[in-house]
């Protein structure tokens, strides 16, 4: 190395701005050992997961203390229903948030698809199995539609899905003529969706199946790696040859399909399709995913976290209803949680990884 670099003018003026400030502070000097910083982020994240899990346990202990009916079979099965539907769709929403997108229409799509299910099963007499075989691919199609508009027209996903939200709600009301569709609900299908095996409700099993599949895909497949990259740094992903449009489309389609599955399960459990099903559902799903640790900014998140978030949302939902609060209270608390958790995550990420924020 020539002396030029070691010259006395080595006290460089790094200029203004965050980078300059960081350099002046010596944050980017390679003297700073990496190991402590690693454990700092690691500790923060591990703490966050532990904190959320602890909060969940706390809630589960507190609620029964405040209301006698919390631990009843009725309430627990109600919670089970909440958990499994939210959890199933939350798997897809996790994928979407990881790739940097969002779907605000899942509630309306759920309502639309469950009405379709009722129409196929009862009005058209096709029976539940065929209805399921139709509704799930239709769900995938709604997701694909979202994805196409997002990728091809480059319209931000929250606008697209916000527009879809009203459209599907309208369609559900139109098709059903604002009346619910109910069926007797007997037979193998209804057992496989709404019944239980060895004491475990099938709803939970379906949800866990979706979660296991989702988790494996995210952690171990090439698609999963590409999804994290697409959300973490889209330009870097694109430059590396990843087709980010395709990655996003798959996430949308997957979420749509899960909505179809959820609609099938809902109908199987309740034996009735109401056009207003799923109102406010999207908030609970998004809340579950965010509480579970998936970042709004993309590139980060786990299914396990989503599972924990789902449990917490379900506990809060049921708990509030039991405490005498109306449906409105759940929306209120979910909204509050979305913002509160979002803020906490933002601050934590900023503290742990200042290079990401300008």
């Amino acid at each position: 190395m020539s002396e030029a670099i070691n010259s006395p003018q080595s006290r460089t003026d790094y200029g203004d701005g965050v980078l300059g400030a960081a350099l002046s502070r010596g944050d980017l000097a390679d003297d700073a050992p990496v190991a402590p910083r690693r454990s700092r982020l690691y500790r923060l994240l591990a703490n966050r997961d532990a904190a959320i899990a602890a909060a969940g346990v706390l809630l589960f202990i507190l609620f029964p203390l405040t209301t006698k009916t919390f631990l009843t079979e009725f309430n627990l099965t109600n919670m089970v229903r909440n958990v499994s539907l939210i959890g199933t769709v939350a798997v897809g929403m996790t994928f979407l948030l990881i790739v940097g997108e969002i779907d605000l229409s899942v509630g309306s799509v759920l309502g639309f698809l469950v009405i379709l299910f009722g129409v196929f099963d009862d009005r058209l007499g096709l029976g539940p199995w065929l209805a399921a075989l139709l509704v799930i691919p239709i769900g995938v199609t709604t997701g694909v539609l979202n994805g196409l508009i997002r990728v091809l027209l480059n319209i931000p996903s929250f606008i697209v899905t916000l527009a879809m939200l009203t459209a599907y709600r309208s369609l559900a009301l139109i098709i059903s003529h604002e009346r619910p569709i109910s069926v007797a609900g007997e037979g193998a299908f209804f057992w496989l969706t709404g019944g239980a095996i060895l004491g475990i409700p099938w709803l939970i099993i379906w949800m866990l199946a979706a979660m296991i599949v989702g988790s494996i895909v995210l952690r171990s497949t090439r698609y999963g790696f590409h999804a994290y990259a697409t959300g973490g740094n889209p330009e870097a992903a694109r430059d590396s040859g990843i087709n980010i449009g395709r990655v996003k489309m798959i996430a949308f389609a997957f979420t749509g399909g899960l909505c179809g599955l959820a609609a099938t399960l809902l109908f199987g459990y309740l034996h009735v399709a109401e056009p207003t099903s799923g109102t406010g559902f999207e908030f609970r799903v998004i809340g579950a995913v965010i509480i579970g640790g998936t970042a709004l900014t993309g590139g980060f998140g786990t299914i396990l976290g989503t599972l924990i978030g789902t449990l917490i949302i379900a506990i809060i939902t049921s708990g509030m209803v039991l405490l005498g609060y109306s449906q409105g209270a759940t929306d209120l608390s979910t909204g509050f949680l979305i913002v509160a958790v979002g803020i906490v995550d933002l601050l934590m990420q900023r503290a742990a990884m200042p290079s990401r924020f300008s």
Partner: protein
Amino acid sequence: MTVSPEPFLRARGLSKRYGHVIALDSVDIDVYEGEILALVGDNGAGKSTLIKILSGVHQPDKGDIVVADQATRLGNPHRARELGIATVYQNLALVDLRDVAANLYLGREPLRWRWFVDKRAMAKGAREIIAGLKVNLPSVSTLVGQLSGGQRQSIAIGRATAQNGRVIIMDEPTAALGVKESRKVLDLILHLKAAGKGVVIVSHNMRQVFSIADRIEVLRHGRNVGVRRRGETTPDEIVKLIVGIDSV
């Protein structure tokens, strides 16, 4: 150091304009393997347009590009990479929330059973790349966002070289780094040269240019106003070429 007699990458007469703006005007450039070429010039001289053309991001309006004795069109970045031209941009194109191994293999993850990533092979390969770069890292599962600026730069370079790049183009590799880190990166660049790669660095820093470059090419107003061997010129002359004052 043996420099190959024929340039690996040779471009002649590259021109590019945007509307009324002439970004490049008939620029020639040669890149030899085993040699470091510094591309210098003031803001707006055309350096970034030139490297974007060489890495396949932009297409020249006029001009020929010859890679390994074959005339080609670098239609897109993938084509350029296939031909052995790897580029490291200033923004590094790293995914901060992913670990070192994932970044090194971004987009070309080794697979097992068709869809599943072979994480063990990836980690092993990543360790080898890091060792080859002589970079100090505790673990390949560290998140890239937590590394220092110089380490991140090394990861970006490592990813470029691991793709069998024969020519590595770097845009301001030490712009955001302090003195110590810059030295490490410059050491790395010299190491690349020793390994037989051709290196093009775009730089504003005369000290660094004169410490490691073999040849220096100066752009001004989109034109190539001079190419000098480092031993045959002085910083003064280069600066005059950059700014456009005729030498006295």
